[in-house]
């Protein structure tokens, strides 16, 4: 089994950077470009995975602050120059319209649109604004990436997403950060989720 796992073809090997796995390398490259243009956070599954959760994902979720079209065009063009491709459209104006309409736009690092992909969304409400304001770099991950706080990720997974995978992600993070979590902040976030995301 070990020898099988170590037999990687050149396409996969090309997507690694040093001792980083493919997801880490993809996220680091994308986030380094984002950092030059906009405040961002990485949220959800990749947060758990970068804390050692034993699973993978096809997409990494990123929230960015709203930005005027000219600034977004500069960001998008930088991504394209660095080898990323947008799945929705090659026209940057269309991509910006998707974002402005509240949709996520997806970027891959290959023109065949094979995973992994980064799904990018604009901040949409006060919950996202608070996530952005309380963003953190998490030493445990060893990654130079801005993440939403562990409390936010746990609250979203336990209160909103709730799939078995999400509940396991939350449990994993609760164990990693045992005795360090701000439970009252988690409850505060859950209250906001019920008010802003679960209202009928």
């Amino acid at each position, binding site marked *: 089994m070990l020898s099988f796992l170590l037999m990687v073809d050149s396409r996969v090997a090309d997507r690694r950077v040093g001792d980083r796995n493919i997801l880490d390398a993809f996220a680091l490259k994308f986030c380094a470009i984002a950092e030059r243009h906009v405040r961002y956070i990485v949220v959800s599954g990749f947060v758990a995975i970068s804390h050692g*959760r*034993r699973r993978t994902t*096809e997409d990494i979720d990123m929230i960015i602050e709203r930005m005027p079209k000219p600034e977004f065009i500069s960001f998008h063009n930088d991504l394209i120059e660095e080898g990323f491709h947008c799945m929705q459209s090659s026209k940057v104006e269309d991509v910006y319209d998707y974002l402005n309409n509240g949709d996520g736009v*997806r970027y891959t690092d290959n023109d*065949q649109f094979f995973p992994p992909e980064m799904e990018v969304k604009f901040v949409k409400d006060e919950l996202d604004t608070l996530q952005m304001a309380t963003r953190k770099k998490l030493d445990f991950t060893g990654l130079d990436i801005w993440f939403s706080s562990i409390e936010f990720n746990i609250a979203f997974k336990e209160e909103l997403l709730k799939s078995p995978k999400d509940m396991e992600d939350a*449990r994993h993070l609760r164990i*990693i950060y045992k005795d360090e979590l701000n439970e009252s902040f988690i409850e505060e976030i859950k209250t906001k989720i019920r008010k802003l995301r679960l209202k009928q």
Partner: protein
Amino acid sequence: MRDKLHMETVEEWAEFVRDNPREKWKKPVDMLINATYEKSSDFYARLDKTAEGRKILARLKVERLNSGKRGE
């Protein structure tokens, strides 16, 4: 719904990650992720070699674009 044993396995692994140095848990996680991408990359590349496969890839792309409509 996954069974209790599955969650127990998740918890045991999380405790191992918390209680051991990074080099002990990072390598197996990296191997899992890289191997998964290796297999999927091979699969997509095989599909891309035929007209029928390219149709499937196009459908998969549409499904991926339509997925992830979550409230988060």
